[in-house]
Each structure stands twice: as structure tokens, then as C-alpha cells.
């Protein structure tokens, strides 16, 4: 199961995404932003970071990259695509997901272990969860506030396209506490928190069991392996 991880100038969590894929049992493949080929991978991850320094708008310039042209096309044909943080911003700028992402309400970058609820499991990236699962995933961003028109929000809620919702604390003012979404088809998912930072015991969020032992993010990467097998 080959899963591509795109590196844009300024991508930061690409190596972490590759590690997460490996730990889940997949084979990570490095993809370069300037190459339009996605090397026949079975799925793609757009990792976190500050692609192009967040110039113009977060993810705006990355969305125009040659590799994105291919990914947008393939996503339309059902290729599973996961956008994490900056990757989520790129998905929104590419119009693969609706809405927009703006500056955090409190104007500060915030890094915290965030509680989430899994709202929808009918997607390539959440099928390994149970609906209603409560998980803890590290969140770290300055521009993570999800906004959308009333109409869009109604549609999202109505069709169950919200995949993750913030619990206990809304860290960035996102509307409806939306932490992540999927598209109608269920192959494209974007989320602000970083599941790739909760995959290896000893390096994830604290858990009641032990310091830094949280690995709730692993299921996201395991999900796509399930969906690729069944594809």
C-alpha cells in the first residue's frame, strides 16, 4: 500500500506523516511539489507546515503546484486524500473541501493536546473508528479557525460531512467546533489537528496510562489501508 506524502517548500510534518504511514503498515512515498507525477500511489497525504511561508493565504500558493493539479484530478476519481493542518488549508484552497480557514480567535499560535469526537466514520480516513469515539490529538496552529456560510454549514451538518469536532475547548474559534471535514464521496478528509503526532508510544500526547503514550492518531492512517484494500 503506497501512500504519497507531498513536500512543498515550507512543509514541516512530512517526515512525521511518513513515519505514521509506516507505523500503520503502509509504504510512504515522497512526492515533490514541482513534479506532476504522483508515482501511482494509492492515497496521498498533504502534511502540516507553513508551505510558502503562508504567503498570500495559507495553502493558496501550494494549491497551484503541479502536483496539486494531478491530485485534484485523481481526487475527483476517488483517490483518498488526507489534508492535515496546512494540508487542510490546501484542500480548502483547492476547492476539494468547502469553507475557509482563518486566524485563530485569540491571535496566538497554540500547541495543545486536543480532545476530539469522531463524528463520521464513512470516509477513507475514519473507517477504523467507531462513531462517537473520543480521541486526543495534538493541535498546533495559528490559522485554524474554520468558517463557512450558513448554507454550507447546514449542508455539512445535514449530510454528516463533519468528521471531527472539538471537545471541551474550542482552541481557535472554529464554527460549530468543526475540527475536520470530509467530502461527499468520503475519499477526501481535512483536519486541523495532527494525527501523525499521536502514533508512536513515548512521543504522543500524555494519557492517563503514561506520559506521552497517546496513539489515537494511528487509526486515521490504518483507515486508509482498510479502504485501499477494499477498493
Amino acid at each position, binding site marked *: 500500500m503506497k501512500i504519497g506524502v507531498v513536500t512543498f517548500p*515550507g512543509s*514541516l510534518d512530512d517526515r*512525521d506523516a511518513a513515519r505514521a504511514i509506516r507505523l500503520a503498515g503502509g509504504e510512504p512515498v515522497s512526492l515533490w511539489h514541482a513534479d506532476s507525477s504522483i508515482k501511482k500511489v494509492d492515497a496521498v497525504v498533504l502534511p502540516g507546515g*507553513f508551505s510558502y511561508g503562508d504567503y498570500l493565504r495559507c495553502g493558496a500558493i501550494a494549491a497551484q503546484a503541479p502536483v496539486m493539479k494531478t491530485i485534484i484530478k485523481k481526487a475527483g476519481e476517488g483517490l483518498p486524500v488526507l489534508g492535515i493542518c496546512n494540508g487542510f488549508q490546501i484542500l480548502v484552497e483547492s476547492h476539494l473541501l468547502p469553507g475557509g480557514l482563518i486566524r485563530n480567535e485569540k491571535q496566538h499560535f497554540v500547541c495543545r493536546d486536543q480532545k476530539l469526537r469522531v463524528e463520521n466514520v464513512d470516509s477513507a480516513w475514519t473507517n477504523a473508528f467507531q462513531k462517537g469515539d473520543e480521541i486526543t490529538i495534538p493541535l498546533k496552529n495559528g490559522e485554524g479557525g474554520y468558517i463557512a456560510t450558513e448554507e454550507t454549514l447546514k449542508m455539512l451538518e445535514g449530510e454528516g460531512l463533519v468528521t471531527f469536532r472539538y471537545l471541551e475547548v474550542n482552541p481557535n474559534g472554529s464554527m460549530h467546533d468543526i475540527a475536520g471535514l470530509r467530502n461527499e464521496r468520503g475519499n477526501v478528509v481535512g483536519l486541523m489537528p495532527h494525527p501523525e503526532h499521536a502514533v508512536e508510544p513515548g512521543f504522543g500526547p500524555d494519557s492517563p496510562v503514561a506520559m506521552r503514550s497517546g496513539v489515537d492518531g494511528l487509526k486515521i492512517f490504518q483507515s486508509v489501508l482498510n479502504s485501499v484494500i477494499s477498493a
Partner: protein
Amino acid sequence: MIIDTVKQSKKEADKEQPWAALGLKEDEYESIKEILGRRPTSSELAMYSVMWSEHCSYKSSKIYLRQFGEKVTPEMKQHLLVGMGENAGVVDIGEGLAVTFKVESHNHPSYIEPFQGAATGIGGIVRDILTMGARPIAVMDQLRFGAPENPDTARVVHGVVDGISFYGNCLGLPNIGGETVFDKVYQGNPLVNALSIGALKHGDLKLAKADKAGDLVILFGARTGADGIGGVSVLASETFDADGPSRRPAVQVGDPFAEKVLIECCLELFAAGCVAGIQDLGGAGISCATSELASNGGKGMKVQLKKVLLRDESLTPEEILMSESQERMMAIVPKKHLRAFKKIVDRHEVEYSVLGKVINKDRLLINWGKQEIVNVPPRTVAHDGPVYERPVELPKWQAALNADSVNARGLARANDNTTDLAAQFVQIVSSPNQADKSYITAQYDRYVGGNTALAYPDGAGMIRVSEETGLGVALSTDANGRYCQLDPYQGARLALAEAYRNVATSGAKPLAVTNCLNFGSPENPEVMWQFKQATTGLADGCLELGIPVTGGNVSFYNQTGDVAIFPTPVVGVLGVIDDVARRIPSSWQDEGNNIYLLGITKDELDGSVWSEVVHDHLGGKPPVVDLEFERRLAELLHGASLQGLVASATDLSEAGLAQALTESVLRFNMGARVWITELCERDGVDRTSALFSESTGRMLVSVGREDDVKFVGLCDARNIPVLRIGVTDNTGELEIQDLATWKLDELRSSWVATLPELFG
């Protein structure tokens, strides 16, 4: 543009030159004329003035820094791949891997423009690490601000934290720890020190030298602009007058995205073997890079300054030479590798320009078009700058300060008033210096890279270097200006002891030292005395502990008018751990464990947080340090951790046992029942000392019941005093027998509220 050329300098020998305005002294100017056999051109004058400034030449500190290189045994040097003198020290950690680390200051720019000052401070230290051939893997920051309630403090705090957050996060470097201290002595002179660490394989090491004639000199990265012109010599060698910052624009502006791209580009260049030598451009920009590369290589250079890619075409040659535009590197590239070099930088869309080449002469030759504007021996610029032996004088107030101890003053203690004593406990741990720092650290990314094993609130930061074996390194940085004001020699040793102890409590073995020496004006003989004492104390201490100083930084002129900051030498200790899985958390998480206090508690409240918070007092002598004992204590903990006997360990330092207990119960919300009567009896101290004394050589450790016997046995065998003072208990409370019981939620509320209330 009228260009002052070498030819002109011979023709117009008696031209008036603004050497004083550029920060040079008359004898230094005469010295330059002697070296060149003529007056310098204005470009040469600019170069010498910047490179001979305090910040670049270390002219006032060199004679004392020598001790770090001299007070070293062969045994201490065995792990050193690169010692002092290079961009950063490099330490062998085993398995063919090495780490390079260093701490640096960016104090003055951070007072003038806190955001950019702090941001570019991070940028600068990361580039130093990169130039050693290493991938930067983490950062730490040591911040000292003025009085918390002073409105100007908030301005600096917000700017600095935003700046570090902005730059460090954007580079993808986890922030694994540091310090934040508030004291009115830093009001007009905040201290912003930044540390970075990088990892490399032994064979990847790069040095900043140009040693083969014919190799090309290439400047790449960001374009050169007017950033920080004269910043280095003018700013760092100038103290602020009491009305505030007088100059605005001499601050560099950073772009972390450009630096991130530069990091990836450089690492690819290194891996491809294109680069024979590399230097980053920081203070003194091109002047520094060219002269240092040439001097280190024992060769010369010929450079065409017009080839420098500019942001601003109106810059004069002098300005180009002095510019401190960020995110630039200078590489020495053998001609045969030029093609490969170009291919890689083009792929990363990084701009570059071939400025010239390495030559066999012992001269640095710089042309502006057809005119020669610089012709100097590189060593005289880069390494053979002035060396001062400044006057040193014991401060007139020192004896009186030392006599004015807590006990001599008879400062009241609440021993017999349980309510007051309990209230002092909460007051002290919630005071700004002791309170929870999450307000700051939550603005830093600690996850990126996926290798952070320990970070704030742990006592040391720890990073995994090898994913295959778990090999990792731990780092702690510590300083205490109050102790140093009382006794700079002991104060430096205390900082070293604390950093050493913090690394030991993480389970790692201390290996090497870096330092950032923040002091007042070297033209003040009393400050110079403090500097001499502190450096000697640190060098002696390192010799005693058997760990060498690998490099560091000096920041002088931290004073407003005549009032200097407290001498504040920041000491960073690096340790190695064979497998980060063995790391020891600072706080306990398990119920029913025994809590042990290692070491002896004495009545040592001089300079303590207690004396500051309760009595607003500073006087007497700081706690005594026994480095031989610290060494044994560290070895004990190492041995115990190898056997898996220790569930948690934290050192005792500022605010003593009170602080250690508070942090231990709040981190994982695991309460404890503690008793201090036995402690008071065994060590002959009162309750105030038991709770708040800052005696050294102590650790608070929790041990699982099944490991008790073994652990105590180990301590006894190694002659380490050990006393059981409590048990962990999931009651949601911290109980200190005969003193108080606090609900963890309430204690936490106080502890976490302080910084958001002040700076929210």
C-alpha cells in the same frame, strides 16, 4: 557613488575618517594603519570596525574565555569532535553519531524590536548549527524580562514570545525547554538567549574554512539589503540611556520560510558533497564570512562585491559589507562541483551568486567593479583583533551585600504560624518566576519531528537522535542572576550544578557544556570583576565535573546608564542517553509510590525565592555547591535508572522542596501525603528551610514499592543521603503533615493563573 579605493587610500593618506562614530578607539585605528601600512579605505574601516567590535571580536572576554580551553583534561576532550572556536561545538554521542549545540544572545535587538530581535536570534543560532553540517533538531530559549507589573514588560514579553514562536515553529523545530525569569534588573535590558541543537553523522562534519586555492566563493540564500547595518558594532557596544531605545532601524528582519528552504537546500548540498567549507552570515555579514573563511583556511580570497545580489540597489559597498540581512550562507565550492551545486539550489529556488575564489595569497581582496576597495590580511580582521585586559575591581558594595544575610537581618520566618507558612507556600509557587509557564510554552510547537521525548514542564528537554536504537540527548539551561550578584564565582558553579543535575534527573549522562554570558559594561571594572569570577567559576566547575565547554557566547553592555544587570551566565549542559525509552519523567503519575528526598537540606535562604517574594530581600551568600557530590548523585540516578528503579525524578532548586512538590503533584494530577518533621530533625533545619531552602545536591524521586529496598540499598551503598518523605496518593490533594492540605484543583488554579493574568 564616490568609491574610496585602496589606490585613493595611498594618495589621500591624511583623509579624516569617522573611526569614532563607527565604534573604534583611537589606538585601534592606529593599529589598523600599522597593519595596512596606510590608512584604511572606508570599506576596510567598516570591516574592521564591525569585526573588532566587542560582539564579534570578544576583545574584553578573550583572556578569560581561554580558561575553557585550558582547564581541560585529555579525558574531557575524548568525546569532542570540535571544540571551542568554531561556529558550535560538536560532541560524539556514539553509534557514529554526533550532536552540535550552542546558545547565543540577541539581547539588545530584542529590547528595541522584541519580535524581530527574538525571531532573528533563533534564526541566527539555527544557522550556526546548520553550518556544522548538521540538521537542526530542536531549540530552547532563555528569557529574562523586567518587573512583571511594569507595562513595558508586557510589550517585550509579547514581542519576544511571538517572535520565537513565529520563527521556531515555521522552521519546524520543536522547542524542548528553557527558562523565563522576571526581575526589575532586566527592565531596560531584557535577555533573550536562544539555543539550538543539531544532529549529524561523524562524516558529515563541515568546517568554516577555505583552504584550497581555486575553490569558488558563493553567496546564496536571501538577497542583501539594509538590515541591521552597523547593528552589531553600534548596538551591542552601546548601552541604552534611561529614556529608552534611541535608535530604531538597526534591527534585522527575518523570514523563517526562507531559512527553512535554506536548511533543506544546504542539507542536500552537504549530502551531495558539493561544499568544501561553509559559513553562515550573522553579525557583520559578508565582512565576517569572507575574513573568517579565509583566515580559518590559512588562505586568501578574491571577491567581486558587485556580484552580490541586492534587495536595494542603492546600497554602498560599505553597507553591503556590513549588512546583516538574514538567511544567507557562504559556501566554498570546488569548481568541479559547481554544476551539482547549481542543480540543487535551483531545485529549491534559492538564489546564489559566485562572488570570487580562494587564492594562495594571505590577503582578502575585494573589488567594486574594477576598483580595489579592500586589501587586508584576513587574520587581522577575523582573529587577531584587539585583546584587552580591562581593569578589574572588587565592587565596593560586595562586602556589605554579603554581610546582609537573611539571618543577619533577622528576616521573619513563619515557622510557628502554620496558616501563614501555608499561605507563603502558595504565594511562592504562584509567584511569576515559579508559576506555570504554559502561557508561553503553548505558543511553541513541541511535536514537530516526532522525536521529542521530554519538553517543558520536564526539567530537561530530550530529543531522540536515532529512530533505530532510541539513542538521544538531553539538555538543560540554567542561570540565577541573584546568586551571581551575591557571588559570581559560586553563582556560575551553581548554574552549572543545576543544569548538570537536571540532565541527570532525566536519566541521561552529562557530557558537554555551552554558555551564554550576559553581563554589564566591560568598561566598568566591577562588572569586569564579576565576569572574571564567573568565567573562572565555570571553568573550574567544568574541570571538576569532567565535562568541557564546547562553545558559547558573550553579551556585554547589558546596562542602562550606570546600572548593570545582575551577572547572568546561562549554562547549558548536554547529556546522552542510550535509549530515550529509559527517560525519567519529572513528575509522578503512579499511585502508592514512595517519595524520597536525596541529599541534605541546610538553612540556605540567601538569594532564595522565599527571600525575594516574602521579604523583597537580596543579600548574604548563595547556597554552597559540592560538585563532587553532584557527580556522585548523578551517577546514582543513572545507575538507578538503568535498573528501572526510578518512576520520576526532579531536582530541587529555586523555591526548593515547595516547588518540587507542587510540580510533581500537578503535572499528572496525582496527589501526595508528605511529612517534613523527620527532615527537619535529621538535617537540623526549621520548617521554612525545609520547604524553601535552595540547598544544592538534592532530588525528589518517586519509587515503586517493589523497588524500594533496592533503591534505598543503592543510595546507602553509594553514600547518598536518602529520606522517605511521603507517598503518592490519588486523593486529589497535596497534604503536608502538620502544615496544610491543598486541593490540587485549587493549587493548580493559583499556579496556572499568574502569567495569563499578567500578560493574557
